[in-house]
């Protein structure tokens, strides 16, 4: 591979890693906007009537199930139950969200009255103190500025039927299949309903991902073409095809890893955006697998002369 050819490969890898990371950032911000415009709910949320203990036990196939109960008439103060707190993406402008195994904490908007004790912020509800761990809203001024989310299992009623709001992927179908279609209502959309963003946004994300995949395939094929000469020479020098392939694949892996590192650092330095480890890993794997598959295809084609 000439320097120019390697440069081209690096450029393409950078480009598609950037696009992939940008799509992720887009998804996160989109969700924050959606939730902020819809009282923290997603478009899948439903209003139901039932018993808390029964619902939380029987909807066990909704992995990201969230159950909310209103603690104030206007619905500004709510209590939450989460099946998996790592899947809670609330828009916050400071602090953090709930973590696994944590309770008696609160997320509050900027306008909510809180007290400080020993440098720790507390929200007081019914004479009970809840430590404030995060502040709701993408910015201080937001539609969530008067909202309070508590995480206190004790505030959920016992077995009696009460109104709850459920959220989570596929929660409507899950609820209907367990309890039937009585006592459940779809919520009538938030701000997103004013435009067709709920339709357009997943399409844009899908097209973007396809572009990335297509780009990675092209990059892999290009690696195959550019390295064909070198591969042939190394094979003539006595290396097996397998060894040559593994050597190239190793180089590509290192390159993709380095590119991923550069992109992740660039986001954090330039835009203060950090990615969860799982996201970086899965992005890396998707890119690497596609590039390697395409390269492997081209390699085999060159070797067999097909």
């Amino acid at each position, binding site marked *: 591979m000439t320097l120019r050819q390697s440069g081209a490969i690096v450029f393409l890898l950078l480009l598609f890693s950037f696009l992939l990371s940008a*799509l992720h950032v887009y998804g996160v911000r989109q969700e924050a906007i959606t939730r902020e415009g819809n009282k923290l709910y997603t478009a899948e949320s439903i209003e139901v009537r039932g018993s808390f203990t029964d619902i939380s036990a029987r909807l066990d196939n909704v992995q990201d199930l969230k159950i909310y109960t209103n603690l104030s008439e206007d619905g500004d103060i709510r209590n939450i139950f989460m099946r998996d707190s790592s899947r809670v993406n609330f828009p916050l402008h400071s602090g953090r969200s709930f973590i696994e195994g944590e309770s008696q904490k609160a997320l509050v908007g900027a306008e909510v009255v809180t007290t400080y004790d020993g440098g720790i912020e507390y929200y007081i509800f019914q004479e009970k103190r809840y430590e404030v761990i995060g502040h709701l809203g993408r910015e201080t001024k937001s539609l969530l500025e008067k909202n309070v989310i508590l995480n206190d299992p004790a505030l959920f009623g016992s077995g009696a039927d009460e109104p709850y709001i459920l959220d989570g992927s596929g929660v409507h179908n899950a609820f209907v299949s367990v309890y039937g279609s009585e*006592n459940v209502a779809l919520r009538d959309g938030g701000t997103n*309903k004013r435009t067709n*963003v709920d339709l357009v946004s997943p399409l844009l994300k899908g097209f973007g991902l396809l572009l990335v995949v297509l*780009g990675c395939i092209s990059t892999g094929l290009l690696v195959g073409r550019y390295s064909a000469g070198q591969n042939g020479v190394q094979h003539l020098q006595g290396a097996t095809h397998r060894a040559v392939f593994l050597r190239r694949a190793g180089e590509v892996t290192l390159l993709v890893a380095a590119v991923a590192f550069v992109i992740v650092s660039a986001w954090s330095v330039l835009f203060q955006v950090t990615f969860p480890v799982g996201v970086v890993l899965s992005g890396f794997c998707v890119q690497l697998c596609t590039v390697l598959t395409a390269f492997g295809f081209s390699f085999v084609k060159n070797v067999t002369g097909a």
Partner: protein
Amino acid sequence: MGIIFDMRKNFPLIVAKSLVFSLFFLAFYNFLSFSQETDAAINQSFSSDSEVNLYTLTDTLVEADEFSEFRESKNELDKLGSFYNALNDGGQFTFLSIFDQPLPVKDFRGDETYDYGYGTEMSVQGKYFDEDFGAQAQNVKSIQMNKNAFEFYKIRTEGGQEIPWKEIDYSGSEVPILLGSNYANLYRVGDVIQGNFYFKTLNLRVAGFLEPGSSIFYKNEINHYLDSYILIPYPDTLRGITDEEQFFQGILSFAMINGDLVARKDLSSAQLIEDLQAISRDTGFYDYTLIDVPTYLVQMSLTKSIIEDNYTLLLSIILAMGIGVICVTFFINRGILVRRWEGGLVYWLLGRSREEIMREFLWYSTIEYALAFLIFWLAFVALPNKNEFILMNSLFFMLMFLGAIYCTKDMCWVNI
């Protein structure tokens, strides 16, 4: 022959290029469709004439005795009627009279999602046997509003039908109503629905359907959508109370004076109260109170910024995709060019002129773009948000974009 040979030789690259283009244009089409809806949403509910102060007017006859005593006095009700008429004529403010309630509808065609209790903390009642109708009925979500409210929230009908506000008269044989967009499959324009409106059976004639997503600010909520509501227009003026209809007109008058006052932002609340007091002096009705509703302006500006932020976000992702597409195209084009170069050389050696070879190669490129359009078209047909106007816009943009690339490629050949 040349084209077929080229297609066979460069098939993967040609397909890749067409796919990249068609994907990007599908994304671009969707972006345009979104930006058009954003514009429409901003113009409808968040334009500068919606930036006003809102106050709620409610009557203070809360005691049941007081209320029924008032309603039994024809004289008092007449005062109330003229108070409403004066409010509606407005001064420095606009009076939006809005009220929602369950409307029992005879032989209702819809399901429980139209029930008054659906989606609220109240329970859904469903179909029941109604004594007054002597038939099956359902309590349906319904909202009444006056012309001011209708115009302030820029509510429009799907077919452009208008409400004859001057002719609204509940003692007439029929009252024109509008149905929310969810009703489109249940009723047709011209159908007559029998409803029990404040204990009086009315023949409600469907005059049109609201645009999907029609919304008003109601009960402290800016995203109050009317898609499953029956909208009953209020009469322009309250006429004198008649003996036989006193019961009905009494309830109606009270419902109608509960509403919101809209005032310009520079009008102080003191001035507004002064205006109201003048109306009270003229009409003799004093039993009301005015509550400032700052939530409206806050919700309205923050909701607007959410819509605008969403637009910026989509714009930035489409730009990132555009840059990506241009870079990929550059590489694919080079790849194709290199592979075609040898063929061109052979033609050259065979004695073909430069122009002839160029023309031949331009045909090859045309195939690539035609394929891109074909893929775009096939996917477009499957899209739910088809719109000819946006399609024309995006096609125009595509032609510009592709034309630019086409020309640069042409230039490449001249250089070679």
